[in-house]
Each structure stands twice: as C-alpha cells, then as structure tokens.
C-alpha cells in the first residue's frame, strides 16, 4: 500500500490529494485502452447492428441506408477515430436498438444499477462483518460450525440459480410475504406518496439484493472470520484484557477495527464482482439497469451503447479500487495518528 506509507511520511491531506490525482491521470490511458479494446472486439465479432431487423419483409435497400446512416460503410479506422472524437467531446452517440441517444439510455439505467449495487454492497459488508466477527468470537462452537457450513454452501451457489429459486419461493410458499418478483417499481408507483414510493422500491430490492449479495456476503463472512481469528490471537489482545477493559470494548474497539483493515481493501475487489453479477441478476429480476442494457446491447450489436456502457463499467471499477485504497489509508490508525 503505497498510499499508506506516503501518508505516514508526508503531511496528510495534501499527499492524499496528490495521490488521488496521479491515480486519476493513470486511469485515462487505461480507460482509452479499455474502450479501444472493446471497439476492436465488437467489430471483430460477426454481424452488425442491422441484425436486429433480420426479416424477409425489410428490403435490403432500407438496411443499406441504415448502415450508411450509422457510418458502418466507412473503413474501420475512420469509424474508430470518428467515434473517439465524439466520445471525447461527450457525445456518446445514438442507440439504434433503443431509438434514443446513448446518454439518455444510460442516464435512465445507471442510477438503478448503482442503487442495487450500493444496497447490495452495504448488505454484503454489513452481514459479512457482523457474522464473521461473531463466528470468530464463538470459534469452534456448534453455531460457528453450522454457520461455516451455511456460508460455504451459499458461497458456492450461483446467483442466477438462487434468483430463480427465490422467485419460485416468493410466488408459492412465501407468497404471503407479498414480495414483488420483477421490476424496480410497481405499476402505480407514480401515483404513490413519497414514503410509499421508498417502501415500494425497498420491497422490489429485497429479492435481487439477496440473489446478488448472498454469495458475496458469505465470502466476506469467511474472510472476516479468518482475519478476526488472527487478530484475536495477537499479544495486544491479551494486553487489552489485562488492562481490565470489558470484553465488549476489547472485541469491538481493538479486535474488530484491526481485523477490518484488510476487509476494506476487499471492497474494491467486490465492486466489479457486483456489477458483473448485476448483468445476470438484472435479467432474472427484470431490473431496469445497466447489466440488462448491456446484455441486450451486445446481442443487438448496438456499438455506441456497448462502448459507452463498457466505459462506465471500467470507470466504476477503477473508482472502486481507488476508493478502497483511500479508505484503507483513512482507517489505518497508523495513518490517522501520524
């Protein structure tokens, strides 16, 4: 962790800003590399955007005109340069499978994915840390063994399968819960008051969050349990108890805080996993987000939409990693007290 050491050596805030700035600068060539790669792969794949209109009743001349209007008749490097130029000026192009500007399409879908991913992240780390720490404290108890079994079971369960099982359960023996199984809002959402709207969305979040997050939560639980066990065996734990601190203070203040340091860096690793998982879970639960958008866009060979969406995913992943690094530095007491 270069930042940690830099912060210890330098003067707090200024170093942090300089570090973040340089990381952001490094991200620029990386992002251009990502979209260029996606551009090449997309065009190497057979087929083009007119594939979605594959139908004998559509005359070839019309498709040819569509190709021309999308610029597909020009050489590839020209298409690339043209696309890159407009992209850099903030023009993401027009989505021919959605009949709308790409920026509009993404503007609708991105918040929904961030909401699902964000809630999921909170749940994953909330549950993971609480259960993992509790298990470590009660290590080798019957409850610990049982939770170990359960977490391993959940960890190895594919999210889309879990999603389908949840849908099945919610429509049969869990039907009395009245949990919605598809979409993000009820059809009468716009007629509801502000509070009802929030609870409407919350209700729709339950099943996708479980399907998307349960496996990750189990993973985090295993990780936290391991870290906690290590910390609990340290000498300073004995010192803390010898000082006469209550067991509660020892566990929460001394053990958990230290055990969480590596967990924070895990956050950066889980972000891309969550967004990747959203791709499948959004299809299963009809969640109107980026994952589903991207899935449809790839199949439709909607080049501008796929490129813009890949760009955003890359931004999210890079930002997630940067955030994890910064958080790591901020919670490290050696940094805080420097």
């Amino acid at each position, binding site marked *: 962790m270069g930042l940690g050491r830099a912060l210890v050596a330098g003067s707090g805030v200024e170093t942090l800003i300089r570090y973040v700035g340089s990381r952001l600068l490094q991200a620029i060539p990386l992002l251009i590399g990502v979209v260029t790669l996606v551009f090449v792969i997309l065009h190497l*794949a*057979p*087929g*083009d955007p007119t*594939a979605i*209109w*594959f*139908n*004998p*009743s*559509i*005359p*070839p001349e*019309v*498709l040819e*005109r*569509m190709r021309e*209007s999308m610029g597909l008749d020009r050489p590839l490097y020209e298409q690339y340069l043209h696309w890159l130029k407009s992209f850099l000026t903030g023009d993401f192009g*027009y989505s021919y*499978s*959605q*009949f*709308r500007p790409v920026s509009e*399409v993404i503007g*609708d*879908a991105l918040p*929904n994915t961030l909401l699902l991913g964000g809630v999921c992240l909170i749940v994953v780390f909330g549950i993971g840390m609480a259960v993992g720490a509790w298990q470590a404290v009660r290590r080798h108890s019957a409850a610990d063994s049982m939770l170990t079994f359960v977490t391993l079971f959940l960890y190895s369960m594919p999210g*889309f*399968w879990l999603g*389908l099982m949840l*849908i*099945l359960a*919610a*429509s*049969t023996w869990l*039907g009395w819960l*009245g949990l*919605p*199984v*598809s*979409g*993000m*809002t*009820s*059809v*009468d959402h*716009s007629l509801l008051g502000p509070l009802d709207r929030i609870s409407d969305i919350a209700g729709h979040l339950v099943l996708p969050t479980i399907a998307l997050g349960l496996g990750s939560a189990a993973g985090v639980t295993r990780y936290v349990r391991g870290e906690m066990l290590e910390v609990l065996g340290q000498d300073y734990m004995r010192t803390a108890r010898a000082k006469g601190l209550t067991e509660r203070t020892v566990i929460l203040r001394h053990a958990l805080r230290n055990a969480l340091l590596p967990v924070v860096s895990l956050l950066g690793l889980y972000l891309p996993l969550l967004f990747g998982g959203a791709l*499948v879970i959004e*299809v*299963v*639960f*009809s969640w*109107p*987000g980026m994952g*589903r*958008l991207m899935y449809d866009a790839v*199949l*439709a*060979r909607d080049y501008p939409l796929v490129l813009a969406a890949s760009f955003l995913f890359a931004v999210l992943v890079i930002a997630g990693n940067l955030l994890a690094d910064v958080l790591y530095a901020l919670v490290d007491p050696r940094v805080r007290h420097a």
Partner: protein
Amino acid sequence: MVASAIEARRGAGSRPFGRALLVVAAFVAGCDSGPPRGADPMRGGDSLAAAEAELRAERAYADGVRQADSAAHASVDERNRYGGTIVVSGRNDIQTLNPLVATDMESVQHQAYVLFTPLVRSGPDFEPLPWLARDWTIDPEGDRITFHLRDDVFWHDGVPVTAADVAFTWERVVDPAVPFFNPAYFDAWEAVEVLDERTVRFTVRPRSNLLYGWAVTAILPEHILGDVPPDQLATHPFGTVSPIGSGPFRFVERVPGDRWVFEANPDFPEGLGGRPYADRLVYRQIPEDAAAEAALRTGEIDMIVDADPVSARRLAADSGLVVTSYPSAEYSLIAWNTRREPFDDPEVRRALTLAIDRESIARVVRGTYGSVSAGPVGPWHWSWDPGWEPLPFDPDSAGRLLDRAGWTDADSNGVREKDGKPLGFELYSTPRQAWQNVAAIVQANLADVGVVVEPRAREQAALIPLVTSPDRRFDAFLVGWSRDVPLDDRDLWACDRVDDPMHFTGWCLPELDAVLDSMQVVPDRESLARLTRRYESLVADAQPYTFLYNVDTILARRAGLRGVEADARGTWASVAHWWLDPESRR
C-alpha cells in the same frame, strides 16, 4: 446430450411426445433474443395415442375457458366492466412507438390498437374495415381512392385528426430520407390530394392487399411532427418519450427497460367503441420466463403474452389462471443451400424432408400449441388451405430416393456415400434451447437414413452474415420468422434476386417468379388464393426449404381478466374490450 437423443430415438422407436413437455429446461441463462425454453426431447416414450388424447384434453380445456368467459359476460353488467389497471407482460420492451421505425410486434400492436386510430382496421380475415376512414370510394378505373374521415377523432392534445394528417403520414413513409421498414405497403400509392378537412384522395396502381399498410401504420400528427426534417423523424423523441396518439388509450408514462403506461381515453368516439373498459393499461417487459410466471401467480401482472409451452402446461393447471392460444404468423424451417452439393438435387432435398419427423418436432417444441407446417402459408392466414398436406414422415421412401440419387451405403458403415464422399452437412441455428432440441431430433432422424448432421449453434448476429453474405458459407440452417399479411416472397425466391441477402437457398424457378409477381397485383382474393396454391405446390415440389412447424401464440392470464379475444391479428386487437372482474381489480 445429443448422443443420448440418438439412443433414445433409436432404442424406443417412439415419439418424444407428451410427458417430455413437463421436463423443464428453462433454468439456464439464454444466449439470444429469447430466454431458453422448450422441453427435453430426450424423454421419449409416449405414443401417438397419448398425443392425440392430449390434443383432445387441450380442446376440452379451451371449450371450458370459452364457457367460463361467456358466463362472466352474461353475469357482469356492461356498466360494471369499467375500471381497474390491466398489466400485460412480454419478453421484449417496446423500444419506440414511432410508426416510421418500429418493427417489433408489440410496438405495431400498440400503434394499431392502443395508442392510435389507423385509417382502416383489419377484420379477422385481414379484410379492411372502416376506422378513421368512415368509408372510401374507388373510381371506376380503379386508379383513384377517396377516403372520407370521421369528424369525431381527436389527437390526445385536443386537435382534430384530419385529412392533412393522413397526407402527411403518406408523404413521410414514402420519403427516401425516412428509413420506413415496410415501403412495400405503399409502393402502389403514387400521389395524394387533400380535398377538404375530412376528405383525402390517393392515386394508386393495382395492388393486392392495397389497404393493408394503412391498418398497421399509424397516422402521424402533422401539427407536432410537420416541422421535423424527414431525416430526423427516425430519431425524434416522439416515439420514445412523448408519443401523442389518437386511439382508445392515451400515453401516460414510460419507465425505460420496464413498462409503458396508458390510460383510457374518455373522448374516444362512441362509433368506434367509445371509452375502453380498463382505466389503465400497462405493458411490462419481463425477459425471464420464470419471473413472468411467478409475477402472474402473485398477481403482479394479469397476462403473459407469448408464454412458452412448458410453463403454459403448468399455468393451465392453476385454477386461478387461464391459458389460451391463437395461430400466429410465425413458422420455422430448414433452408437448404442449393448452391452446394448435394442440396442442388431436388430428390435429395425431398428425401431429407421425408426423413425428418416434423410432427415430433412440433410436439416437442410447441406441445399442443403448434402444428406441422406444410408450406409458406399457415393457419393464421385467410388464404390457408386446410386440405394442403405436408409431406409425410416416411424414412423408407427417403432411403429409396437417396439410393436413386446415387447416395448409398456401400461400405455398410451407417453413412451413405457417393464417389467416396460421405453424405453429411452442418446445420446452423441460434443457441436457443428450442432450436437445439430441433437440431437434435433432425440429427437423430437423418442418422436413421444414413445422413450425418453436425448441429452448429451461432448467436443470431453471427449467424446472419453467414447466411446472407454473397459467399453463403453454409449447408443448411434452422430459422423461424413471422410472415406479413401481404405474401410477398420475391426476396426469398426471385431469379433476379439470387444474390440478394434473403435469397438463402439460391433456388429459383421462372414459373414461380411469374406467380409471385402476379400475387402482388391481383386485386381479388379468389385469384390470390389460387396463385397462393400454385406457389405452395411449386415450392413443395422442389423443397428448397423443409417446413417444420407453425407457432401458436400462447396467452396465459388471470381468470379475472375477461374479453381477451385474440386472433391472427394479434393479442391486442380486442384491447378496448378487455375488462377485469370487479374483485380482480388492484
């Protein structure tokens, strides 16, 4: 999986009917436009008798549904049918309601029956009926047609719908700057003249199905779109953000990727049926079949459009739900590349068709919701001839034909050869489960007559260039598509279009060209039906396609949703008369 299919087919020698449909293969993420569906063809065992019993049970069930619906009609007074929100779900989102660029079935349906009032309306046999046009007259010479419009149809912003809107719409659809997808609808319409606010006259050339285009192309509001340059109409937000229509329902909101919401138009003219029964009508996209099924059971939605045959069985067993179907314009086929050996030999193509058990394929893939296809015209079309039989399933004759064509199994290795070359081919399809099942059965059937089939799955966007590019690097491919009411198949067969993308087979016949050309211009239905027969028999003789099965569209709905009378025109044709039992309203 494929190997076991061959074993099952050879071992039992029976048809993979019936029970196989209960085996769910839907719990796997899909790779093309539709989620995977269909049954496991590997569970053979049921007999033909069982299949027939199943069809009988299906018919009895359908009768029961009709009786229950008419009983409800009789017991609920007309005044009590108003109210409630009807939620319908489909696999695909409606991307736009802009009539100039929309091609998907859901969008066209919502234009024709929900949001707009087209110039004419299709009757059950696709005959043009008065709608926005209260009547029309055709000059004795037949080259001019004059429409008289109703004076009580208004755009949802209050402006009346006039002859100027009709003329404007026509001018745009034929404008080369507008990428209108069905120019053939209007290629016989040559000029327009607005005579007064309610009268518009067109100059036309003779054309079969002359008025059909007007039944499926919504009239556009000139007062909103008149100033938009034609080349920008396709990308105008009218169709995606703020459509203003003139039909029985008004646009309320769209949540992209999720739903479209419409509300009853209280000003819809009495003469056209007046205000629809439902207060609100919602179309929701639910891409995953299992989720749609669950949503129907929990009451989140009232109807699934195009349910898959496997879940249809389960849903029909639920007493609170009702499953119905109607013949759709979709059929499936194997296209043979006759530019290549051995598909250049019509006898070989006929043998392949005879050797493929299309009845089993239809049952496995569609259950009772489909039928064997005998040619390019299915039961949905008014010109369909129920007496027109498909080639039988007859492996023995197939073997004899192949022998005669010189393909024999001289070395008794189970594969026929000719000049040392084994008889085999690659069969392309998309990875959808239904196609994989079909490919497995075709493979097993043809193995029985000594032909080696290698199924190859390619995602749709990758398959299309393979079969449409000029070099046509394929032997055969499996495909399904929907027909349009005007049967214009010149793209598929015409000799002067052999190099066009849709001319997959490369097979053509001057006599067929003449028939297809005449089919576009004969004005009366009797002559058209006669030509269609000729078309069918020419294609049947040559077998450039092996026609597989016709698809029935399945509607699964809550029993409390009434008045859904769907036919080949589509699910929404009766939407203004759908109503909810008072106790079923949410």
